[in-house]
């Protein structure tokens, strides 16, 4: 089943002009329009995500991959394109404020790269997750405590730290709380933006393994955005390679890694230390 069908997704920062798309992209070697100065974060992005599948988006800084993630999690307004989303049987980009809130509460879980975008550090870890449950209509205190405890166990956050302020948590724990929050309402899509950035190497592996376990068990459709090829290789079934706002290559992850076709992908793969 197709969960998400993205076509021609485009984000332009600035006024934009009729030449923006023709004058930017990997062939032009830039993402800033020389005519009007607008920055084309991404353009003509199209892909599908199926249920139970992990789609990786890989590319260097400024390739537009995070913009794509943020538009899909409704944290960023798109300039153009359409995103058919199965859960609402319609275009994600045509939704009004109320629908967007509903989507964010129930259907799309986002794990942000920067912890402050995803969690209120003054709240307790449990409070951050409870907030998500409350906005989805949960009211019974006992039920909420039980569900938060269950989510902490699933994401391997010590439950005896549930009531401690989130800023006392380690980076790895904060990332786990974000994942707990993202999956709290059984969403049909989870978006992970750089899931291991800023984490200790020893913690990275555990977070990836924990997420993969949950993803497979629940059959979650997932988009993982990362500049780290190792993360993409270990998590993603299929992969898109982005450069200067455009998709330059796509395919089965092992195929992209071992038989890269595009010049940029070959350079990327050959640059891994």
């Amino acid at each position: 089943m197709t969960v998400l069908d993205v076509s021609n997704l485009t984000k332009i920062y600035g006024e934009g002009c009729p030449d923006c798309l023709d004058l930017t992209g990997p062939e032009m070697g830039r993402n800033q329009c020389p005519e009007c100065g607008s920055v084309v974060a991404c353009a003509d992005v199209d892909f599908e995500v199926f249920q139970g599948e992990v789609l990786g988006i890989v590319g260097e800084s400024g390739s537009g991959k995070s913009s794509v993630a943020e538009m899909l999690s409704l944290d960023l307004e798109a300039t153009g394109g359409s995103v058919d989303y199965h859960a609402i049987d319609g275009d994600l980009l045509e939704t009004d404020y109320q629908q967007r809130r509903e989507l964010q509460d129930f259907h799309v879980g986002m794990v942000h790269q920067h912890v402050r975008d995803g969690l209120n550090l003054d709240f307790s870890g449990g409070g951050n997750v409870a907030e998500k449950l409350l906005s989805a209509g949960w009211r019974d205190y006992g039920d909420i405590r039980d569900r938060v405890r269950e989510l902490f166990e699933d994401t391997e956050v010590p439950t005896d730290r549930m009531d401690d302020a989130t800023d006392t948590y380690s980076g790895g724990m904060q990332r786990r709380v974000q994942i707990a929050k993202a999956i709290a309402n059984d969403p049909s899509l989870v978006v992970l933006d750089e899931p291991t950035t800023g984490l200790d190497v020893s913690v990275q592996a555990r977070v990836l393994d924990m997420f993969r376990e949950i993803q497979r068990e629940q059959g979650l459709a997932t988009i993982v955005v990362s500049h780290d090829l190792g993360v993409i290789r270990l998590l993603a079934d299929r992969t898109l390679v982005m450069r200067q706002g455009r998709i330059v290559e796509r395919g089965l992850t092992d195929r992209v890694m071992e038989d890269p076709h595009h010049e940029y992908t070959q350079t990327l793969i050959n640059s891994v230390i």
Partner: protein
Amino acid sequence: MSDILTIDGLTKRFEMHVIDGREVAGLEDVTFDVRDGEFLAVVGESGSGKSSLLKCIHRTYEPTSGTVEYRKGEQTVDLATCDERTVLALRGAEIGYASQFLHEIPRVPAVDVVARPLREQGKSPETAREIARDLLETLQLPEELFEAYPATFSGGERQRVNLARAIAPRPRLLLLDEPTSALDPETREHALDLLESYLDSGTTVVGVFHNRDVVERIADRVVEMDDARVQRVLDGSAYREEVTA
């Protein structure tokens, strides 16, 4: 006996943009069949195209031309051109592959690495781990390593984990790339015994082997490769006669 794979005109060329755009031949016009339930050994010098062949069947390499027809009952799928969803579904359920190296998330215990594909098939964590332990035991991985991380293992220990993971889900078609190269002779024997028991239960194996003893012992047929091409396809008995002559 029917054929599980019909490979016809399979060709793979790599365009190396990072080396002046030169083209490198991986496979040239490879044609042969794989029979249901057989053990087919692929032999040849390093660089002759053996691994490329396995990777093209698995779609880790995208063939440049030719077909790889995979047959199950009345259904036929061309693995060279079918959509990616079909490839992923087949890999999960029917086609297993063990590369020369173990790629896994670090800091996952060996037994869980082997249990994971079983869990993805819907087995309970307990059952999956039990099967995984049995396999690792049969492959003589010391028990104290079951809960340890494979990244710290020797080449041979890691290879046992890799092999156990590939065969655990009992695929219909098993692609093995030098699965026993780092094993000592005794462990290799155990690995081959295990593979033979899988063959008895209907698994078809296409395996790349350097070690002649392995090929002599277990192969029903042998594909000889050289210079990206198949030179000959021999019956196991003919191969054995030639080797002993």
